[in-house]
Structure formats: C-alpha cells, structure tokens
C-alpha cells in the first residue's frame, strides 16, 4: 500500500473465516507442528481436559488475522506484529479482523504505519487484540 493512500483513522476490515471447520484446525496443526490434542482431539477435550470440544490454536487466529495486514502491505513489509488472546475460538465461529491506522511516521528513511488490531467473533466478543507496524510504499 502506498503511504499517500493511508490516513490516520483509516480502518481495514476483513471476514477471516465463516463457520470455522475442525479440519482447518487439523491443517494448522500439521503445518505449525503444534499437535496439542486440545485443538484436534474431541474425545481428549471432553473426557480428559474438561472442555466442551476442540478449540482453535491461538496462533491460527493470529495467522488468519495477520492477513488483514499482509493482504494490504505485503508480508515482506511487516516489521512488528503482536497480540493477546482474549477469548477462545471454537469450530463454527465466524471471525472478523480489523486494523485501525493509529500513526504514520518516518523512521530511517522508511514510512511506517502503526495499526491497532482486533478480531471479533459472531457474538461480538473480542477474541484477539494487538498491534502491527508495516512499511508503506513511498
């Protein structure tokens, strides 16, 4: 994205997933290497761990949310990206990611855009909050 196209207060919003599938959790386990049964094994969750069923890796939610930034700025331009996981994400959830431009600044000859990030589910509960800094094209 070009710096000239961005203003403080601009909001970027994407539907990240609708009706999250258990298979997506399995795909994420396979690529990330995090095979924690809390995310893939319903029997373990219900009968051993005390949860109603499997739930998403926080890192899956963070990965999906990152698309709000990378789809616009490019993965190669992400300088910082950090989050707190505030609620669990369950199969069947719809997630929407939002990034709000908080600042546009010059640093070492680069134009950097600071973003405040939130992801909410279909009930309006915030499941992730965070920040990112991305380099904008001149």
């Amino acid at each position, binding site marked *: 994205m070009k710096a000239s196209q961005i203003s403080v207060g601009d909001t970027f919003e994407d539907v990240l997933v609708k009706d999250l599938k258990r298979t997506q959790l399995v795909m994420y386990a396979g690529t990330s290497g995090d095979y924690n049964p809390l995310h893939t094994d319903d029997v373990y969750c219900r009968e051993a761990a005390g949860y109603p069923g499997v739930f998403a890796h926080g890192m899956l939610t963070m990965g999906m949310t990152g698309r709000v930034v990378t789809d616009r700025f490019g993965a190669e331009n*992400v300088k910082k990206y950090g989050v707190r996981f505030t609620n669990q994400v369950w199969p069947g959830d719809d997630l929407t990611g939002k990034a709000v431009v908080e600042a546009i600044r010059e640093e070492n000859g680069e134009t950097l855009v600071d973003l405040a990030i939130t992801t909410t589910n279909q009930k309006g509960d915030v499941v992730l909050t965070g920040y990112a800094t991305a380099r904008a094209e001149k």
Partner: protein
Amino acid sequence: MADEKTVIFPVEATHIMMFRRSIGDYSVPDTGRETAAAPPTFPRAVAQFDPDYHLRIRPGVEWFGSGKSPSGVKGTPPSSGGLHAEQHFEFIRPVRPGDVLTVTEKLGKTWEKESKRAGKLIFTERVVEYRDPQGELVCVSRGVSVKTERPVDQK
C-alpha cells in the same frame, strides 16, 4: 524443558505454501515454488524442527491424546500443555524460502495471577531469536503461555 535450546530451521517453499493454506492466505500463487516472504506468524513453525517438541508424538514418549482411553497418560492435568496468552514478532527482515535459520529459545520471566474463570494462572515467557548463517538477527519472537488451575469457564 531446558532454559535454552538451539534448533536449525530450514525454510522451505512447500512448507510456507501449506502454512498459508492453513491460515486461509491465498495472496500468493499456490505452487510451492514461490519466493515471497513467509507470513509473519510462520517462524513459530520451527516447532517442526525441534526434536524434543512436547506437542508432537515422539518415539518412546507416552502421548497424552486419546486412543483406547480419553488420554494416553494417567493423571493428566486438565489443561495439559497450557494455553497461549500472548505472541509478539519483530522482524529485522522478512523470512523467505531458502533461509536456514539458527533458532535459539530462552526462558524469560514467569509470574502468577488469580482469575475468576480459570483459578490460579501461571504465566511463562519465552524469547526466541532467529539468525541467518552469518549470525545476523532476522526475527525475534516473544511468547507467553499460561497454565490454568482448571479449564477456562465457558460463559
């Protein structure tokens, strides 16, 4: 887990392709031969190259997931392995296919907190540095995991 460990992470295009699919990122052609930068959360996939990673079935180690019984380990704590509370990445440059990264994980701070929804919480921080073969820093990540006294109450 040791306080510090080092793992070599060869970054491959097909791994990134599969990782992109798993997070629903189709911004790059789905060929497995692309040279584009990896998504910013990809560095955590170093777990695949950690020989002792505790969240993968390993030879000679009982796995705590279900089989004949709900857990392969007797007396498993209710939220075995803990939950992820925070994750942060800072990039000096992007991670790309062809990188061979030396990854060093160090134990950071630990602290406790009381929670209405899950009882006593024990937080543990881990700081991970990713360096290229010349020793130049590529990325630093900081993760915070939390062990809960009991499963998190669902509203």
